[in-house]
């Protein structure tokens, strides 16, 4: 049996969703047997290969996030997003009530613990987007698993459905926004 190829990336997020991916108890054994993780934060592979399933966590907060989301969308057959940030914007989008300039000034200059702060301007750093947005604001998403982080049973359900060849839609009792 050929393994299903998966690539994952975390965008504007806290890592909690990727942690939760590993936190699905014994189900991970069966899933690991059936899938091959290509690029993901654990393998540290830099390029996205062509994959069956692309998995994103996090919102789109800067141009790099935007680029990665677009690239993975092109390289994968099915794109699944995990967590409130990717589904709704989540915590990163709480900055949207302010302008990008206000946010940068507050964080790098005005915080109480900062002395002689400076807004980073290196060309190597990806530029912040005006607003942090959910992934489907830029690319087509096939499956959404909300939660902060999503519950293990929801992740388990979504991955198992995918491996069975179905596009999962979370049943009501597995839906959580917190």
């Amino acid at each position: 049996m050929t393994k299903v190829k998966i690539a994952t990336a975390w965008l504007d997020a806290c890592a909690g969703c990727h942690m939760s991916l590993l936190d699905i108890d014994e189900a991970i054994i069966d899933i690991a047997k059936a899938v091959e993780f290509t690029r993901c934060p654990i393998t540290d592979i830099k390029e996205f290969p062509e994959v069956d399933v692309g998995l994103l966590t996090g919102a789109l907060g800067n141009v790099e996030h935007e680029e990665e989301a677009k690239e993975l969308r092109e390289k994968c057959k099915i794109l699944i997003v995990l967590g409130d940030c990717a589904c709704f914007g989540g915590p990163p989008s709480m900055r949207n009530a302010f302008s990008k300039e206000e946010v940068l000034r507050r964080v790098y200059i005005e915080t109480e613990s900062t002395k002689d702060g400076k807004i980073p301007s290196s060309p190597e750093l990806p530029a912040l987007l005006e607003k942090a947005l959910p992934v489907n604001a830029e690319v087509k998403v096939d499956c959404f698993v909300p939660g902060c982080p999503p519950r293990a049973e929801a992740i388990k359900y979504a991955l198992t459905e995918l491996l069975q060849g179905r596009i999962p839609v979370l049943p009501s009792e597995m839906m959580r926004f917190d």
Partner: protein
Amino acid sequence: MSERKEITLNINGEKVKGKEGDTVLDICRANNIYVPTLCYLEGLSNVGACRLCVVDIEGERRPNPACTYPARDGLVVRTNTEQLEKYRKQILELIFTERNHFCFFCAASGDCELQSLAYRYQMDHPRYPYTFPSLATDTLNDFLVIDHNRCILCGRCVRVCNEVVGNHTLDFGRRGWRTTVIADFNQALGESSCISCGACLQACPTGAIFSKVSAYRGRVDECQGIQSVCSLCSVGCGIHVLVKDNNIVRIDGANLTGPKGPLCNRGRFLQVYKTASRITTPLIIDKAGIAQTASWEEAIDSVATAIKDYRRRYKTSSIAGLISSICPNETVETFARFMHDTVGTSSLDIVDGNAYRTLAQGIKASGKSSLKLETESPLEAILGASCVLVVGADPLESHPVAACYMLRARTWNRAQLVVIDSQDNCLGSRADLWLQPNVGGMDAVIRALVGLVANKNERSDQPHKATSVTGAAQTSGLSAALIAQTADMINGAGQVVVVFGDGILDRRDPGLVTSVLELASLANTDGPKWISLKPRGNSRGAWEAGVTSGDGIANAKPRLVYLLLADDEYIAEDCMALAEQAEFLVVQASYASPLTRAADVVLPSPVWAERAGTYISLDGKAGRSQRVLEPPPGLKDDLEIIAELAQRLEKRRRMP
């Protein structure tokens, strides 16, 4: 009211019955047909704001909200077509993208009606772009926070504030998609006319209005819910207490949209965060005057020894019992029986005994046999009144939910509100007429009104000792025109309910009570309508128990006083004076106070949440309070303490 005609509808292919005057939603609910709602709240007016309850009605071009659609015989309704369900999900997506609904740190997450509908409709992402509006959070109120980011403009808070509380602080401001809920003229809630009753909080379906004292302390499904009765004042509101890990998480009105539903800030909030210092062990004052922690046995022994000692050295009348009417009937009765039968004294009173005697003597002096405590009007009478006359009372401060009856009568019945009070009065600025006579001028004003109302009605069967209006004006410092205007208002009204409180009851002037009652009699053709705002949670129960002796106990100058204060935090001057003149003072109380500091023996007492019992509300309705918390370890129930004392006193001394 005539019986409403029965009608038959066809809902989802089933024949269901309802009554004429019902809405389609009423009939769906009565027949267990699920229709989702957000802006609907039973007991409030229906506004059709959220459109979640849209249903297809045969003959209508488009879906209609079930909550505002009047049902009629033969109506054919569909509530669950695929198209309707799609619309509902779409509405949820629009609501979620309209403002900033961040569930992950919301205090209401898990208890939120919007969130649970989103789960039901499997809304795993909204298909619309977010607007991310920049909205304020109003945190200036002591108890409530309004977070406009989470508001869905259902208007339940606005309606409950207007229709149930009657205060109408909240309303909508601005127009279209800029609409927000505002307080008064867009003031911060903490700087507005808000009385912090928290009814809006209980009505809010999301986390837009949340409580500073309850947020993040537990979700409803983690708590045990217990129905009880609030004993903080004599209105006797039904409460629903949510308890988690022996802590009160939240107190809700048992029936939010009912008359006693809104609760007040004390009943809803102050009990949750109680900061007063509790007494948790018995204390005995040693010879040096220092309070020493004692065992129950030592403390009870010390009280029993003192009682025996005073009984032997003096008459039993040197011993007096005083109990707070915050205690339930069972405690009052047991205490009275103990003092009477076991101690053998008839020197017994309640802390608000003077108020009771003033009222009783005032009633007696009126000479009317129809006037007695039992013929006092129920609070509901206020709702039917065309004029409410508040005399010597500040109900918004002392009995806030009773004040809500008045505010509601104003809103719904266009009742006129007259306040006559010498003190500052919170209700005054909300009244149609506010008379502030000089202290001491109250009598003259009431008597002048009695004269004016009697003359106009020519209903009086006896000559009046009425004060002339000019005389009253002079004594009270009010204008004669204002007094005359007040009389006109009373004369012009059909149903006048007179409400009086501590400003009359604490004056120890039964004549004043008689005048007020006479005014209440003259103002109505069908008998007097009056309500006395009694000072404590179970005042009426304690008053009716007949445990007070003669003129109270102060004149007897008791040498030993046993004061059962329980969790009463109000200490009247006469009570303090009595305690100070006592040679031996036993105080059974929940909280440290000047009284416990003056005591020779202090016995810890449970608070309302830790005891059960029956209370009689100011208008005679019995309510049962439940024990919602386990008392701190080592605490005994009041009844248990009295029983142990009795046992100790009755036990014959045996030789070792």
